[in-house]
Structure formats: C-alpha cells, structure tokens
C-alpha cells in the first residue's frame, strides 16, 4: 500500500524520496489514529491494533534515512522494521504485503503509478496465503482487493488516488453489516455485525493518507 504514496505531483513516480515522504506522513497519521484504532479493535480483538500501527510506523521511520535507492531492498527494510515491532499478526501481515511488493520491485529505483494495482494485488495475494484466508471474509484483504480492482487500468496518479479512496471507503461500508468469518473476529461473528473490521479500518486510513500525499 505504501507504494501508493510514491505518486508525487504531476509525474507520480514512485522512488526513494516519494517513499520517505509517504513514511513520514503515515507515521504522523498513525500517531493520531492510534487511540481510535485501539478502541475499534478492543470491540473484537485484544485492542492493540493502534499500538501495532503506531509502533510499526515509528520503527519504519527510524530506517527512512538509511533506505537504499533500490525500491525492492527499501521495502524489504520497511517490512523487517514492522516485524520487529511486535508479535501482532496484523503487523506480520503488513510485513508480508510489503515483502511481496519488494519482490516485485527488486532492482528498480522507480516505478510508475500504473503499476499500483498490480503491486496492491501482489500484497493481497501473499497476505491471503500467509493468513490462510481469502477475499470476502471481512478482513484487510477486502480493502486491498477493492483498491487493486478499482485502480486497474488507471495510469494517472490523481485518478488512481481518487479511485483508491473511494474503493476503500466503499469496502468498509459494504462489509460493515456482514459477520466476520475469518481472523480473530470470527469468534465474535455475531457481535461483529454492524462493526467495522479493525484491519479494514486501519488500511482505509492508510489509503487516505497515501492518497493525500499523492495529490
């Protein structure tokens, strides 16, 4: 997802400076969102999702100055920073997604906005495999899937950002009244009806922040 942020100005190219800008924006946004995400998570899980995101992004920002130009290696470092933050499965899932994008971008110093849909799709697929779950279960995968589909075929940074935000918001709305069938929240399937999935909520925030950076 973070790669979305790489869309800068008119060119919308993803490169090292774009990545650093995105990391700074996400880190400060997660400081602000931590309490709300913790509260959403406490209704269905152990209430640490905000802390996971905040700690994870702080560790990623600490590596921001040392990131190499190779986007693959840079994203791999971001992924590893996330795995250091905690044992939270959501943190590991995000790291898995980042590693999948890192593999796609290995050896490259820039990428174009038209690649975003493919990269988000790669993250979605590897996270589904790691989490042994599928799209449709009211998890973060559904937000990623919506974004990957909505941005498919788009080439312009501005319209990609717009489509991504609209798709993430819509996924949140579409799944709110469905029961969770995978992940920890499935234990509370009935209770989850009417509540946003905390992971979807966190990823939607991320999409909003990255779209803001892109515009």
């Amino acid at each position, binding site marked *: 997802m973070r790669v979305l942020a790489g869309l800068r100005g008119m060119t919308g190219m993803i490169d090292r400076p774009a990545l650093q800008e995105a990391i700074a924006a996400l880190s400060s946004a997660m400081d602000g969102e931590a309490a709300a995400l913790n509260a959403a998570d406490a209704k269905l899980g152990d209430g640490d999702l905000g802390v996971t995101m905040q700690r994870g992004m702080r560790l990623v920002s600490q590596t921001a100055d040392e990131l190499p130009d190779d986007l693959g290696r840079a994203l791999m470092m971001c992924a590893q920073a996330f*795995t250091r933050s*905690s*044992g*939270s*499965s959501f943190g*590991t*899932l995000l790291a*898995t997604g980042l590693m999948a994008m890192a593999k796609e971008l290995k050896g490259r110093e820039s990428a174009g906005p038209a690649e975003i849909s493919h990269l988000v799709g790669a993250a979605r697929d590897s996270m589904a495999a*790691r989490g042994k779950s599928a799209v449709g279960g009211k998890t973060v995968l559904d937000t990623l899937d919506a974004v990957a589909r909505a941005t498919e075929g788009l080439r312009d940074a501005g319209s990609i950002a717009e489509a991504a935000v609209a798709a993430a918001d819509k996924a949140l709305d579409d799944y709110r009244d469905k029961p969770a069938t995978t992940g920890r929240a499935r234990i509370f399937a009935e209770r989850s009806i009417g509540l946003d999935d905390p992971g979807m909520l966190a990823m939607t925030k991320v999409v909003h922040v990255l779209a803001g950076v892109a515009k």
Partner: protein
Amino acid sequence: MKKLLNDPHAYVEEMLAGLVAAHPDVYRLHGETGRVIARADPKRPGKVGIVSGGGSGHLPVFTGYVGTGLIDACAIGDVFASPSVEQMVDAIRAADAGAGVLRLYGNYGGDVMNFDMAGDLVEIEDDIAATTVLLADDVASAPPGEAEKRRGVAGMVYAFKIAGAKAEEGGDLETVTALAQRTADACRSIGAALGPCTVPQAGKPTFEIEDDEMEMGMGIHGEPGVWRGRLRSADEVASEMMDKLLEDMPLGRGERASVLVNSLGATPLEELYILYRVVSKRLMEAGVEIVMPLVGRYATSMEMTGVSFTLCKLDDEMERLLKAPCNCAFWRV
C-alpha cells in the same frame, strides 16, 4: 487485579530473569530481543533442533520444556500474545546445530503466521532447513471434520517429549518431524474452566463467570466452550470429558495410551487426583493400558481455575521415547 508484580510491562522480562537465575544449569537467555530461552548446555553439532514459542502465561509451557531430551529453544511473547517474527528467528538460530530445525507449537493464527515468516527468513538468510508440526489437540475448539482448525493445548507436552527424545538420540529432521506429527495426531485434549485469569497488561479477567458456574470446553485464553452451566461434581465432569475424548479418538482393548490430568493453574493437585480416579477407571474398563500417567501443572493459563485432560495414544516407538530420559526444571524422566 491482585497479583505479585512490579510493572505489568516488565512482567515477562522479570519472569525470564528469575527463571534463568533459578536454573542456570538448564536455561540461558539468547539473542538481542531478550525473549529467547535456549538450553544452557552447549549445542551438539549435527543434532536436529526443536524450537517452540507462544505467549507467556502457560508455564511450564512453552519455555519450561527447554532442556535435555525436550526442546532446544523457545521464543516468548507477552502474556497470551504471539512472539514477534524477530524473536522466532532468534530462537530458530539458537536451536540450529546444522541438521535443521523443527518448529513445534500450537495452532494459533498469530503464532502460525509469525513462525512461517520466521522460517522464510532463516531459509533465505541462514540456509537453515525448517519444518513445522502444529498441535491441534483441543477437541472442543472445532468438530472432527475441521480438525485442522483446532487449537493446540496440553498435547504439546507429549510432542515435546517424544520428538525431543528422538532428536536427542540422533534422528534426522525428517524422522523427528514425522514422529512429532504422529504424536500430534495421537493427542486429544479437552478443558473445563471454573474461574478466569487476569492478563497483567489488560488488568481485568479474561472472562466473567458466576460463582456457581463452569464452562465445558473453554479454551486456555478464555475462548468460548461447548456449554456453560451449573458447576457439576468431579465425577460428572471427568466422565463427560472422557466421553468427549474417547468419542473423538476411540481406544480399544489392548491399546496403550498416556494420559495427562492437568491443572490450568489454580486447581489443586488434590482435585486432579479426585478426577484421575474416573480417568483411570474409564480407561481400564475399556481395556486400555495406561502408560506413565501425568498428573499436575504441565500447561497452565496463569491462575485460571480449571482442568484439562489429554489422551496420547502410543505405539512402541512413542512409548519408548516417552520413557526416555529428559531434564528441565519442571520435568525429569
């Protein structure tokens, strides 16, 4: 919360510091994360390593079973929380003696994801071959048709013991892994809870239950069970638990099994032995030979009041390895 602690956030670190101070001949802290316990004795090159991991709050599981003839290293998370990938990577490295490492732990989503990723990392960075066997022995957590969704509980004690003995006598990675899997497949457990425990960092009980109630089949972290109702007598509770285990894994005349009657923390040994009368009677009536029964605190959930039963069906090799010598601070054979 009424607990003997200092800072809830230092709970795990202080526990590990005390564990290592009390048993320096068995355990040592390994690596930079401060959350890996490895065997104190030097590694034997060419021995298959066995690593486990999971949340704190279950002593002697998981950490306590690091020792001779058992497991080699363990990654320890916060109370009831998965260790991080980095801690698991450290633990795998600590267990590796050049012959590969078996990851042997309980079937919980977070632990599985993190151990899988840790395995990917050590395969790339260290060229360590890593296999996995998951314990999924809690019959109350999913029906037989979805056995792969079951949670891992006290059956892991048998897997540690039997696979650990095989690794100690020189079995290769494939053999040790296969034996661990055979043991995992031969274990069935069920728990019953009478009272909750409190996770120090959360500060409040994991679930609420009335004074005169119990919950059959409850998970070790307070996951919902099969039924909740009025507290029944020891014999009724034990009978129902044995019914559920034997229904899931029928044992016939002449078969052998070990059985673990385990306190979840607060339930005293006295009550475990009251329950064991029924366990042994039921198995003897079925013509099952009981091998090395275990009664005590082998896998706990802090101060939870309750009990779990585990049946482990044995073949010749498993029986021999169960009886082989082992040593850790909590169990010597």
